[in-house]
């Protein structure tokens, strides 16, 4: 028995199992979030939402998957087929990959990288490439417009996103996400969202923009450019784009929780569940994901110039100022840190 467990913990096997588990988690998360999205939308609009398949409509994602698998993949005749088909994969893999460095509970992290935050920043910027590939490969006007908007938006919002992480890195003195979570132990007043409140809000807004959610869904632009870069996709390719969008939404929430809301740390010390602290991580992530959906069904879309103004003229100065404030505070109250 002991030897079998040792084999499972040995390196190549452990990594493969972890990959499988992460893929399972991400794909299921995408399915569940689709369902949650539709239910939240319906409830906010005083409707019931999907309630026919299974008890209270809970099997709807399964029905959707079956439908999408059996659907034909249509591609435009003039499309650049290789780029067109590679784009959903290029969007999905970064979204799934970053989950590898997120600590779910004290001992449950696939790869405890000492540069995990850098890894997150690097990998998430790849998903902009997927958007551009989708727009270029479809060879359709709306797709290209959406892709260009997406590229502009995602690259602009990388800047406040990265800057807002630096405060936490300075306070922790480490780029490892596990270290960041450990540093926030002992009650919710130790979490970084209090000393880093402007950074937390900036990260949240930049995260919204980075995963192209309302009110920053210009690349999709349902009402103007009918779906943007994913106009031409259908069937499983489209499903993969959707899955990657929901996965990256979950990812943004998870990273936000890890960095600012104490990861798997319980809100009060007496609520410590030991190995089962992933419950706190899941609860906080779910709450953040709900706020993403809540915002989506409440707020209208920003204009392109408003989007750029918010990014460059508001968020970047705020993060820069707060970096100075953090640095100054660390210099003055050296004995505390």
């Amino acid at each position, binding site marked *: 028995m002991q030897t079998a467990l040792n084999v499972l913990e040995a390196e190549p096997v452990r990594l493969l199992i972890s990959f499988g588990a992460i893929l399972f988690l991400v794909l299921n998360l995408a399915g569940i979030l689709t369902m949650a999205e539709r239910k*939240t939308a319906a*409830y*906010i*609009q*005083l*409707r*019931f939402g999907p*309630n026919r398949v299974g008890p209270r409509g809970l099997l709807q994602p399964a029905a959707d998957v079956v439908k999408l698998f059996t659907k034909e993949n249509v591609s435009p005749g003039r499309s650049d087929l290789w780029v067109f088909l590679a784009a959903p994969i290029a969007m999905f893999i970064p979204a799934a990959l970053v989950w590898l460095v997120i600590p779910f509970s004290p001992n449950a992290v696939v790869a405890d990288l000492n540069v995990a935050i850098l890894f997150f920043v690097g990998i998430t910027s790849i998903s902009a490439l997927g958007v551009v590939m989708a727009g270029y490969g479809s060879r359709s006007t709306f797709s290209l417009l959406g892709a260009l908007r997406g590229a502009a938006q995602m690259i602009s919002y990388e800047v406040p996103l990265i800057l807002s992480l630096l405060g936490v890195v300075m306070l922790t003195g480490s780029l490892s996400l596990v270290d960041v979570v450990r540093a926030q132990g002992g009650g919710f007043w130790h979490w970084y969202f209090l000393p880093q409140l402007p950074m937390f809000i900036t990260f949240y807004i930049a995260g919204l923009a980075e995963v192209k959610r309302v009110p920053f869904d210009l690349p999709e632009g349902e009402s103007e450019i009918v779906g943007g870069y994913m106009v031409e996709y259908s069937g499983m390719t489209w499903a993969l784009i959707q899955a990657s969008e929901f996965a990256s939404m979950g990812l943004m929430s998870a990273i936000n929780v890890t960095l600012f809301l104490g990861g798997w740390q319980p809100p009060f010390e007496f609520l410590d569940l030991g190995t089962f602290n992933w419950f706190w991580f899941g609860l906080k992530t779910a709450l953040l994901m709900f706020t993403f959906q*809540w*915002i989506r*069904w*409440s*707020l209208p879309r920003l204009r392109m110039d408003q989007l750029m103004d918010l990014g460059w003229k508001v968020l970047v100065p705020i993060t820069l100022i707060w970096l100075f404030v953090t640095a100054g505070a660390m210099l003055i109250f050296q004995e505390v840190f």
Partner: protein
Amino acid sequence: MPQVGQGIVKGMGITLKHLFQNKITRAYPEYKRDLPERSRGLLTVDMDRCIACLQCMRICPDHCISIEQTKRDADGSGKAKPYAVGFVIDDARCMYCSLCVEVCPVNCIYHTEEFEVQAYNRLELARQFGERPVDPTIDPKPAAKKKKKPTGEKAPRSVERPRTGDEAA
């Protein structure tokens, strides 16, 4: 400056309130609303009262009623009267205008409260009421015929000059 974000807070407050409110959707097949008093559902015929006067068939703008008429002594009075052996109402054509109901002298054709019909084939929507089925695909030719008035100008012109493709367009 104090107004920044007020709209966002207000809007999101409303959506949050709606999240917990009672839903206004009526789950249709389980919950059915009472129909209005004079709602027009599917047509039906009381064949015992029908006197085969063919008025409904004639007035129907969609030609959805076909009647096969014979003479028969149905009520035992010794006289052979018109009798509808076949009576078909094609729901695929009916537009629920209610003209047949208004014109019927004995009130034997009327609307029911049924309104849900479905079929895999258009012909399955034709409902037979008589002893003999009537072919619903044959367009019933009403007996009353109006003489077409000659429209005058158009006919001679086409004789003068054959139409070209450009003119038609």
